[in-house]
């Protein structure tokens, strides 16, 4: 099958700088206008039947893309199977809940704290467990995700099963209002965060951590022999991914104004992982596509509401069987380079 990713990459390589800048600006502009897509007749097909379209764009679509990009650092870039990513989302959400209701910090001040808390949890979990072989790591992270949820469920001071209600929304910033009627503002915040994460991943990929992750993913033993301090880079990858999850959690909590343990079940981890693998592990654009599709489609097909999870399961099986590397697979860097050399 055609590798669309390679075609896109080849097109991009062929452009000069102004062309690239113009393309990126147009793309960002179009994405930024997405919330208005439901208002015009020719794009109204985008509208979701039950939830408000603008709300769907923030959660699940934006959030899933953000978290899938974060998880992609862990699973796609460094090949560590994390089945408990929801834990970091929950830690971010609960940080926003506790600090938002008990202190006078606003969402923007809580955001770095939430990220730090998630990162700290990532290091704490990562240091002992990242020494383990892949499948054990999977089950330990899965357990960690469940532990975080159960602790939240059984701790009275953070609301136990009822969770934390009335978390404050972000304050008015640059004249933009944030409340339940203004989903578009949240969408822009999430979009900016996604852009920052994309920028961060692109920087990492071409620098030492990115190369170390690639080496670890391809062959751990060889990486050790080449002198890559694998534990350090694994913990880095893990905690950076965690920080992204924590950030998503903070924004999520301030958007829904409410967190409860049953929002952070194992299913969320599975869904985020599915976004990563479905779209194309290791390839940012594939992951974004996967996140958009897997978050948006179940909302769009709500009219078959009862069966939509069933359809989702069938779609997962079908796509994985037809395109095992995902919709937009990882770039075949070697192949492109070789083709270029042959052409010169």
């Amino acid at each position, binding site marked *: 099958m055609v590798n669309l990713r390679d075609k896109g990459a080849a097109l991009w390589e062929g452009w000069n700088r102004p062309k690239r800048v113009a393309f990126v600006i147009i793309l960002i502009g179009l994405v930024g206008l997405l919330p208005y897509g439901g208002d015009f007749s020719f794009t109204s097909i985008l509208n979701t039947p039950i939830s408000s379209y603008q709300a769907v764009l923030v959660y699940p679509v934006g959030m899933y893309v953000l978290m899938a990009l974060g998880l992609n650092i862990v*699973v796609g870039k460094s090949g560590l*199977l994390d089945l408990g990513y929801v834990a970091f989302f929950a830690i971010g959400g609960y940080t926003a809940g506790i600090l938002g209701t008990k202190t006078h910090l606003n969402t923007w001040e809580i955001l770095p704290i939430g990220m730090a808390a998630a990162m700290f949890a990532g290091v704490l979990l990562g240091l*002992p*467990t990242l*020494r*383990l*072989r892949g*499948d*054990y790591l*999977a*089950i*330990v992270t*899965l*357990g*960690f995700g*469940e*532990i975080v949820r*159960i*602790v939240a*469920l*059984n701790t009275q001071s953070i609301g136990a099963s009822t969770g934390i209600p009335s978390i404050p929304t972000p304050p008015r910033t640059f004249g933009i209002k944030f409340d339940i009627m203004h989903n578009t503002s949240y969408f822009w915040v999430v979009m900016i965060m996604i852009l920052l994460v994309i920028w961060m991943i692109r920087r990492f990929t071409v620098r030492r951590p990115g190369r170390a992750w690639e080496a670890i993913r391809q062959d751990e033993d060889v990486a050790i022999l080449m002198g890559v301090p694998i534990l350090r880079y694994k913990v880095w990858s893990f905690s950076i991914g965690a920080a992204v999850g924590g950030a998503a959690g903070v924004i999520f909590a301030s958007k829904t104004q409410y967190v409860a343990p049953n929002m952070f079940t*194992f299913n969320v981890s*599975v869904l985020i*992982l*599915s976004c990563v*693998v*479905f779209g194309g*592990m290791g390839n940012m654009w594939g992951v974004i596509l996967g996140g958009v599709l897997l978050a948006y489609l179940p909302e769009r097909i709500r009219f078959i509401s*009862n*069966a939509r*999870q*069933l359809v*989702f*399961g*069938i*779609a*997962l*099986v079908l796509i*994985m*069987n037809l395109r*095992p*590397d*995902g919709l937009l697979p990882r770039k075949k860097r070697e192949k492109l380079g070789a083709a270029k050399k042959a052409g010169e």
Partner: protein
Amino acid sequence: MNFSVVVNQFWPLLINGLAVGLIYVLISLGYTMVYGVLRLINFANSEIFMVGTFATVIVTRDIFKYTSAHEALHGFKLVATLLLILIASMLFSGVTAVLVELVAYRRLRSKGTNRLASLISAIGTSIMISEGVRILTKSAPVPTPRLLTKFNLISIGGVDIRIDTFLVIVSAALIFFMVDRFVTKTLLGKAIRAVSMSEETSKLMGVNLNRVISATFLIGGLVTGAAAFLYMQVYETTVFNVGFNLGLAAFTAAVLGGIGNIRGAFYGGLTLGLFEQYASAIIGGQWKAVTVFSVLVLVLLFKPNGLFGEAIQQSRV
């Protein structure tokens, strides 16, 4: 914290722990055997268990037409009925397991693609099965008619052992023993072990890989179905997501004993079942999962190949 309960309730907790642990043992065989041959977590095993519990209900209720109000069965008729229901739920689960392998794994395996693709495909199959059952049952718990009148069978030193607990302990141990004999003594068992040691070499030795893998899934499914039957005799109610927590615990048990290692799964399941009972007696049932996972993390930290080692698989730290 309530330590006195352990002293007072030592023997009842032990018996319960044994029963729960043996159910874990049977389910974890489904994980550990598949992991042995495919090196993949059989994500749909919890759904295979769930299918088994529903098969028990359907056979008891709709084929044998028993209701909760029927008169109690005795003697030979009771044993024969229970055996037939056991075989039926084993078959249901076994067939489901073989189908799962066909749908989720076979095509991806023949392409030799990345392991995560198979994992997601298995997750998809698992979602498909559980959602299908959820829609059919409308998310409601389904009770099974009680065949086994629950009476205290024996009393040892003031501890009553109920007939269903006794049934679970004896038959699970028996089934495990049979599986163990099968894998160590028969030709097919030898082929399964050969594939889990080296897929390439066993192919060169003329082992029909697809057949062996299907057989592994079938055995794993049959055993999981038996576990489902036993579970239903004790708990008597099932729901579409019944397999989730049990599957998680069973997988933990498999890892605890060293995944891929069949006898390890036995010790791992028993250890987990007993530990879970005592731990939840001491610090409260709601923390059960937390204690289980904490132990798992500790074990993996200090003995990364599980308590009893990975007999089949090459281990790497």
